[in-house]
């Protein structure tokens, strides 16, 4: 653009305004940059009114380790504060002295399939059955922020059949 045209254009400010402002407005509408700083927070209640029933607090999927193991492990908390672990769609292999325990996912021993050291666990009880839905009481003292991994553990041979990392429900 030559300087005379520029000068003419700046002389007629209304042209600049008439073109520039809509362009700026359109750019704003498209990108909505203020949303980078503005948060919209909602807090809808659950679509059911059943706080009298135990609610899931944590859940995770079981992954196989030494033996084919699958299903879901969930921690429920009742209105009285009592918590239990529930296994659903659960299948593992049968074995000697198999227990359900909680372990710390940060524990290096948990990464082994055949544990050589001592696995730091919270005992929930002997496995009731190698298939089917089942519940286990959780001790009140169990700190799930630390013991956040459900392990199907053969105590006799220190073998991890399978485990589930719990995530907040």
């Amino acid at each position: 653009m030559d300087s005379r045209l520029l000068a003419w254009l700046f002389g007629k400010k209304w042209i600049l305004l008439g073109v520039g402002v809509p362009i700026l407005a359109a750019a704003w509408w498209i990108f909505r940059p203020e949303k980078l700083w503005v948060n919209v927070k909602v807090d809808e209640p659950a679509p059911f009114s059943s706080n009298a029933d135990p609610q899931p607090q944590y859940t995770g999927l079981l992954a196989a380790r030494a033996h084919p193991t699958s299903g879901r492990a969930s921690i429920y908390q009742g209105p009285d504060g009592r918590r239990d672990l529930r296994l659903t769609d659960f299948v593992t292999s049968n074995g000697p002295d198999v227990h359900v325990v909680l372990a710390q996912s940060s524990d290096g021993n948990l990464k082994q399939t055949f544990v050589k050291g001592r696995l730091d666990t919270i005992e929930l009880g002997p496995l009731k059955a190698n298939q089917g839905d089942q519940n286990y009481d959780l001790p009140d003292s169990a700190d799930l922020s630390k013991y956040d991994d459900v392990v199907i553990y053969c105590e006799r041979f220190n073998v991890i059949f399978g485990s589930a990392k719990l995530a907040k429900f």
Partner: protein
Amino acid sequence: MIPKVTLTSAFALLSLAYGLQQSAASQDSTKHSNEAKTLETGTFHGKVHQTSGRATIYQQADGEVILRLTNFKTSNGPDVHVILVAVKDADDDTNFLKNGTARVELGKLKGNEGDQNYEIPRNTDLAKFQTVSIYCERFNANFGAAPLEKF
């Protein structure tokens, strides 16, 4: 004539097998008798547009199916929607329009933070639409995806 010892040991073996079979399956009843049934759940992942939280699908007693987001957080943006997509999982910024991925629209994102519910159309095939996506319709970009697994 079959020797008595054989018969006895055969019987013992059979009863042992029966006993083992008995111990194989358990069916603890659920301690929660929720009106709503939890069908599926999964957690969000998304790094480019920091998305986290949980997506859960409930079916209510009247048959209505609801998607609920909890502990949810994503980045705010223009024209962001919640959709179900017919994929197993989705990477950040995936363009479902370009991929021609089938989707079900659940509505505009109500808030970029907090618990929120969305109705799922009744005829939706959840076996096909396996992933929840927080999707920016204006730029066709996946902010975050939650692959769903049976609860």
